[in-house]
């Protein structure tokens, strides 16, 4: 499985779990406006869950500025070991 596909699958799993939506599909351009329930609280639990799933940690600036799926995916691909 390529790194990108694995990342996509695991990230989809985290999003589905976090937003309690078992059929949610995520695209790079999706953000807080296009995914229902993505408010500031859900953003924090999303970040905590992604950190756990991929064994990465986000810096303060990243947590504050990451606001679309693509930004998150980029950092995971860069930082996570697959």
């Amino acid at each position, binding site marked *: 499985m390529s790194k990108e596909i694995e990342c996509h699958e695991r990230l989809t799993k985290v999003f589905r*779990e976090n937003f309690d939506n078992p059929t949610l599909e995520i695209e790079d351009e999706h953000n807080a406006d296009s995914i229902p329930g993505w408010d500031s609280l859900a953003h924090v*639990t999303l970040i*905590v869950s992604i950190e756990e799933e991929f064994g990465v*940690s986000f810096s303060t600036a990243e*947590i504050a500025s990451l606001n679309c799926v693509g930004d998150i995916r980029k950092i995971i691909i860069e930082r996570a070991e697959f």
Partner: protein
Amino acid sequence: MRESELGRSWGDLLGQIHPNLTYRELLSLSRQLKQLNSKEITEPERVAVVKTKIALVGNNTLSFACAPLEVFLAKQGIKAEWFVGEYNNYQQELLSDDSPLYAFEPQVVILALDHRAVHFMPEIGAVASSVSDAAERQVREWDYLWSKVKTRCGASVIQLNITLPHEQIFGHYEAKAAWGPTNFLRRINQLIAERAPSHVYICDTEQLSNRIGKRNWFHEPTWYTTRQAFGFEALVTLTYSLAAIVGTILGKSRKCLVLDLDNTLWGDVIGDVGVEGIKLGQGDPLGEAFIDFQTYCRRLKERGVVLAVCSKNNYETACTPFKEHPEMVLKLNDFGAFIANWEDKATNLKRIALELNLGTDSIVFVDDNPAERALVKKYLPEVAVPEMPSDPALYRRVLDEHHYFEILTLSQEDLTRTSYYLVDKKRKQQELATNDISDFLKSLEQECEVGPFDEINLQRIVQLINKTNQWNLTTQRLTEGEVRGFINNPSYHTYWVRHRDKFGDSGLISVVIAEKKGSEFDIQTWLMSCRVINRGIEDYLFNRLLEDARRLETTLIVGTYKPTKKNVLVSGLYEKFGFKYQGVDDDGASKWLLPLTENVTSRSCFIREAGSDRHKA
């Protein structure tokens, strides 16, 4: 025991809750609990659910605390409604008579303050008297909040004491100077303890932060992005403890510690190695660890926790170390109940609860064996079953970190409780409904691998033959050379059995030696390790023997039972398998015969064959 499917799924969920979950796992459990609630599924009736209202206020963000608190409280049979205060708005919320907090009518108010809530820090270089003044003024401010809660709504208060931050501007000197921030915050915590009235309970957050370490407790990115005063690992540790204190306020704390014996209170199996052979006492690293664990349990008893024993053993055998081992810390009269038999432990725990007149939901069950723990979790999800580490040296710490036995005050009754249980105590022999054990066996996903004696397994086979006492039909001891003699001897049919289940590999646990004598298939040795008793392995093996006896065209299986002081456990085995009693020889050994008619069929068991070659004929 029959429970509805729905009741069981609630129980399964409760069984998954323990203090070392991650925040993400807790979120997932909290969602699942909500789903069950929304379907109006009721919890098993044994768990009396208590409803309560909890307000969370403080000088930092507390919204993330609700989900883990809900999960940890559910484990104790508590369902809460929440009021979560606005960020840093606790003074207004607690002081204003018409605040939404009082409209909510909380039963418990959790006041979560950190060092940033300390306004009266002393000046640098301040003299001792002004340092004390500052501390007094600070705690008086909180004391006023506590009184206000009491008069306005009568709720209990859980006050978090101050977690000392890890930075020290003045270095180690902070620990010397009275005005040093480190010293001052310690003084504040001391003063909180001294001033807290009876309706205020302290959550010792400072101690919790030491346990997981300040570097883990404080998590700056979380603080700057959410204003939560600690990281999410800390949040789990904190909410677990808060739930324990809330549970205690609502009368849900645990009262009874039920202990297994073999490899829980001492090393090794008493029924096999005897009182001289168990690991317990000075000089042996593990023996010393067991001594310390026993001492820890005795201290729990001295402070009012009732101790009980639940062991798979013969009663007399189980008692021997308590009577005869010189280094045993715990004595028989330290226990309010002492059950040692071969029934399943869920049934025995119910029996203990009945004897002690406690609910099963006040029991903590400690057992080194994961299969026993799984059975209890499955059938009695309300019992607290800590996952014990494989290293007994860690038993004390792991048990302690679960905060099972919280108290709000120390009563005289606490200090004399066990003697109360011991008074006028004839062990009530009660017939209790037995659990549906086959469901449990199925869920273990057991596999056995069977093979003939070989060089690779020889050492272990010899060890088992010479060590096993209880599940051993003839207790025939053999030397390594004698055992080796069976390999490739065409008259003898030998079997070793490896067993595993979903919890792991039990290793090589059973041995059979049979001889083909003309038309007879004669079982001369059959033994099994105590660790896997009552899993149906003997049924599985019987089927194998039956198959081989038929394939070898014998017409009769011969069994022997030679009684010893320790093997009464298997005295009825051949009868159970349908063998006919043929009398006793001079040595007291009884002969049992099973003619291989069509009526003899295999026995049902819940064990699959592992991927090994079939035993050669």
